[in-house]
């Protein structure tokens, strides 16, 4: 067993953890500002597709990162327009966007590449984590976000919008503004997470987000809406996944169909044991 926990294993763990962690941090700050963020899955998926499209057309994996972040921001824009401006239910908007992402990325795949399930090979960062800017972005975000939440005007207003929107109104700030700034940053982070899905394997695959957005949101709730803690919880999920891959490689006889269920079962167990409201949710979450 000791040969399992090597540097290669650590690199694999980081590679797997980054999409989860970026989505969770994006979701945490969005929700802290009072907007329910079930659209994480859509941001990951569109981010992953845009990363492939940008990297493919420019020949640069860095352009792919930018594309992924822009796609995350764009999805967030639609989400905010529907839920803040049109006042649609935030849970339903999120689920609808996820369905749109599932069909939409496949439609784009068909339209642009005339393929049903895979994009062409694109320039990628591959298995190396040290030279991958998305990995750096995840680590920087994990350190900077907790600081920004308590020390910057952006963070203070964001938290006020989530907990006491009335207090913002009394100082002449519309609560929707900090919510928009928070969610757009969150969308960019989540979109970068989507880009990592594509740029670590060198291509887009239909439905490659595979429920990671939902798992990330569960980790946000588990971490009590604290972004860095949520990222750590995501590393836990990634550890289980990476460990699993090792077990499959060394073939210890656990059927693959069941091994793939581990992150889902873990998330469900965590929710069942820790409860859904571990820590306090932002007071005005989902309310306008």
């Amino acid at each position, binding site marked *: 067993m000791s040969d399992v926990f090597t540097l290669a294993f650590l690199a694999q763990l980081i590679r797997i953890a980054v999409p989860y962690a970026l989505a969770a941090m994006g979701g945490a700050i969005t929700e802290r500002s009072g907007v329910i963020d079930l659209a994480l899955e859509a941001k990951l998926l569109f981010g992953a597709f845009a990363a492939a499209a940008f990297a493919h057309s420019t020949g640069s994996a860095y352009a792919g990162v930018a594309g992924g972040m822009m796609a995350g921001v764009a999805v967030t824009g639609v989400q905010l327009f529907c839920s803040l401006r049109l006042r649609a239910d935030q849970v339903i908007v999120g689920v609808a966007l996820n369905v749109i992402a599932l069909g939409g990325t496949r439609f784009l795949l068909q339209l642009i590449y005339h393929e049903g399930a895979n994009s062409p090979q694109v320039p990628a960062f591959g298995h190396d984590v040290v030279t991958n800017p998305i990995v750096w972005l995840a680590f920087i975000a994990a350190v900077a976000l907790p600081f920004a939440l308590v020390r910057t005007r952006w963070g203070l207003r964001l938290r006020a919008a989530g907990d006491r929107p009335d207090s913002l109104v009394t100082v002449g700030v519309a609560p929707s503004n900090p919510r928009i700034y928070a969610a757009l940053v969150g969308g960019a982070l989540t979109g970068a997470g989507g880009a990592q899905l594509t740029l670590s394997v060198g291509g887009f695959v239909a439905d490659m987000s595979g429920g990671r957005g939902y798992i990330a949101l569960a980790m946000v709730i588990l971490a009590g809406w604290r972004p860095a803690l949520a990222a750590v919880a995501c590393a836990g999920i990634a550890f289980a996944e990476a460990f699993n891959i090792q077990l499959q490689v060394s073939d210890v006889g656990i059927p693959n169909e069941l091994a793939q269920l581990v992150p889902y079962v873990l998330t469900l167990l965590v929710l069942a044991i820790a409860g*859904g409201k571990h820590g306090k949710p932002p007071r005005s979450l989902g*309310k306008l």
Partner: protein
Amino acid sequence: MGERSLVDWLRPSANLKRELEAALIAVLFAVAIGSVLMLIAGKAPGYVWSQMLIRTFSDSYWTGQLLYKATGLALTGLAVALALDAGLFNIGAEGQLTAGVLACAVIGTSLPESTPAILAIPLCLAGAAAAGGLVGGVIGVLRVTRDAHEVITSIMLNAIVAGLALYAGNTVLFKGGTTTGAPIVEGARLPQLGFGGSSASVAIVIAILAIALVWWLRSSTTIGQAWRAVGRDPDAARSVGIDVAKVRIFAMVGSGALAGIAAANFVLGHKHAFEEGLGRGTGLLGISVALLGRTHPAGVAIAALLLGFLSSGGLAVADIVPKELIEMLQGVVVLAVACAGPYVRRKAVA
């Protein structure tokens, strides 16, 4: 998380005209977006939409496929609608349906060959309902006892049930090298409706009965009043002595059972066996059906026919536009109806 907002959104506007207006706006919006996408794909929207209508209604095969799709959608839509009425967002109909398909097929194959239909069909249906209800019940219990949001637990269970079904298929059920299990006994098969060899079957009667039953329950019984009271305002329901926790759990069990019964359409009425991915997508699309139908059983029936038309029509014109375009539209409908509801209500207040 979001309990109040969901309830706000669902508050019945007591005004049929307003409900219809919201649904109409949503459909028109989806048609508009669809047309734009068709233009992007380089096709004339008028031609695509008209071909969709012509092929669906002039070729009895495609008419039958519409009914086949609508039957499954009506049941999963009803499942989601029932939970929404009780203030719960059950997006786990997909997993509940898969559990139903598995149970239905296992019971159907293990019955003695000579089992008469009068026994075989109810047994298969009961098994499907129980399996779906069990998955739904787990979501309900986690929500009530652990305050775990049903949307997240539903998604986890969708993945888990799909994985377990695949495992069961690969290890026990699938016949060597295929992704299809052994056929169910003759007595458990529902008669086909004809329609040019389409997949439509007598399962449509089960869907109609389910719609009638839920309609009656929700409009004329104290049970229905209780679940809708919990959906409207849990605190108020509690104060008049309704056991909110119990209602929520039972609503999720009932919702899961309805989704499970949709297996009849796929296993008993069409494939007559367990198959990998059978009925896939019907549970997810049930969300669109329930929201577009404004959670009313009659609305669900109409929405099921409409989205069934989109599904089968999308396949009928797959040689003109990619079918993914239509899949995307099904999400657009949900988004549009979520936005149109509050819009219509605000306009009415103003």
